[in-house]
């Protein structure tokens, strides 16, 4: 696969998201909100897949980079009042980019000292860094501290969300599907051999980390302008774990699988909410035949995860690898 027409596909995807975006006022706002969430989680999962899946560096700090991007973009757009659509588009794009770049810088600062660690040790250290970032925001009065930060403008729309999804997928896939990019997988498969074959393993690991952090920052900016309210608690390590679960469930280093997993795991809690129907009205919930699901929604979600992991440890959407292993 050399993706000869990669750029055309990217342009088509951007055009398509623009078209859908123009018709977005016909879509139910709740559905639209869920669609944004799906897009945001696809960006998060696909970018984390570059670090955890392709390069094999188990990072648990993705929510931290998301927070950096989210707060940065929100602070920037909050400086401006209502603007005309074009100006607000430019502003939002700039804010997203700034959030991504700052997240990438933080990723570089975190990555340089930590990426000499391996496996569990790296996981623990990145978890620690993610928490440090969250605690910094919690104690920063400029962004409301623990009270949270209101984001004045709901700039996130279908075009920005899925345009960024397209860009993320494009970057990760074109990067990995090149002679240069095979180095990421070589580092994952055998770091010592990779180094002996002339691969600057540190540079590859840091590159994966920085690119991954950049897109996590972009996702954070989209999230901020979709929910329009940020709290540091929203970026705790449970959030990081949710993204890691998507990568593992989709299959490490399997981008289409990870996209499907992100869709599925974002829809699942929403779908259960749908079944429960009336979870926010306790009196009615008791009368509703499926009302009990409302309270146990997250338990069902967790149980499903356990079942999925037990039955398909190689990833829900990984078929090819299984065949490869079956060969003599």
């Amino acid at each position, binding site marked *: 696969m*050399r*993706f*000869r027409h*990669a*750029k055309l596909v990217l342009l088509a995807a951007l055009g398509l998201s623009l078209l859908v975006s123009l018709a977005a006022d016909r879509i139910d706002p709740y559905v639209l909100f869920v669609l944004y969430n799906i897009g945001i989680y696809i960006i998060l999962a696909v970018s984390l897949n570059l670090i955890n899946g392709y390069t094999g560096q188990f990072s648990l700090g993705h929510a931290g980079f998301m927070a950096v991007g989210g707060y940065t973009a929100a602070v920037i757009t909050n400086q401006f009042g209502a603007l005309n659509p074009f100006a607000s588009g430019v502003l939002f794009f700039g804010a997203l980019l700034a959030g991504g770049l700052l997240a990438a810088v933080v990723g570089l600062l975190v990555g340089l000292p930590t990426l000499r660690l391996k496996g569990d040790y790296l996981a623990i250290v990145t978890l620690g860094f993610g928490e440090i970032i969250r605690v910094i925001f919690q104690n920063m009065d400029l962004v409301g501290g623990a009270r949270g930060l209101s984001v004045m403008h709901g700039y996130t729309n279908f075009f920005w969300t899925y345009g960024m999804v397209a860009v993320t997928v494009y*970057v990760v896939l*074109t*990067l990995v599907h*090149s*002679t*240069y*990019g*095979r*180095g990421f*997988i*070589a580092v*994952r*498969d*055998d770091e*010592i*051999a*990779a*180094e*002996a*074959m*002339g*691969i*600057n*393993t540190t540079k590859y690991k840091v*590159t994966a980390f920085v690119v991954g952090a950049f897109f996590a920052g972009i996702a954070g900016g989209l999230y901020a302008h979709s929910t329009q309210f940020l709290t540091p608690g929203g970026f705790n390590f449970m959030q990081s774990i949710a993204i890691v679960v998507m990568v593992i469930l989709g299959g490490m*280093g399997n981008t289409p699988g990870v996209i499907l997993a992100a869709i599925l795991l974002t829809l699942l809690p929403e779908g259960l909410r749908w079944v429960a129907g009336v979870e926010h009205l306790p009196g009615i919930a008791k009368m509703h035949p499926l009302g009990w699901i409302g309270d146990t929604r997250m338990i069902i979600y967790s149980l499903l995860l356990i079942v999925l992991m037990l039955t398909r440890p190689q990833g829900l959407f990984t078929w090819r*690898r299984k065949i*490869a*292993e079956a*060969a*003599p």
Partner: protein
Amino acid sequence: MTAVEQVQNVLLKVEKVTIRFGGLTAVSNLDLQIGGNELVGLIGPNGAGKTTVFNLITGVYQPAEGEILFDGRSVVGSKPYRITARGIARTFQNIRLFSSLTVFDNVRTVFHLHLRGDIRHALWRGRAFHDEEESIAGRVMELLEIFHLEKLRDAPAKSLSYGDQRRLEIVRALAAQPKLLLLDEPAAGMNANEKTDLMRLIQFIKDRFKISVLLVEHDMQVVMGICERIVVLDYGVKIAEGKPDEVRRDPKVIQAYLGD
């Protein structure tokens, strides 16, 4: 030590190299030279320090004392990947392929050393990128064909047989276009027939690619069969050096291998 003086156009020069691990001196005051297009064997009983010498040359370990010159410049203090880029490639005693990558990709990955484009080319996917990828694919297939691995090009490396994996590891090292190839016990785990094939293969590589080979081997039969010069290590000290026949008769070597 007449053999040492005979080395022509020295490619690798190890001078008085010593390395210690805690109280143990793994390699002591070692001198070793390899000439251009020369096949040198490094032998010795278990634990003699053969693999340690490899790790010193390739930059995995740093010598406590001494100097290692490759092509006239020191490699001491260089990172392993830089030493590979300068022209020393190796294989491993326990095979270390990129197991989930295909045979083709295992070799292709190494070609990034010769890439003109970088990460931006991969992202932009312009004509330059596609042209370069195509030429790399051609060169990879050429190498695979030489070693009769072309039919396995799309098989994951881990699915190959033991012998094919060994061969692929050598092909992968050759993709780095080295001037010096280090083979770490390539005959380990092979039967007599496979060993004969391997000897032929090593000889072929030396002649076809015009490179120098340093062969670490436990197996006397393989080393005696193909090496032009042999260096014998015991407890980290060089105890003999010379042509296979000279080394074979050396009482110190016999004693090291057979005991008192």
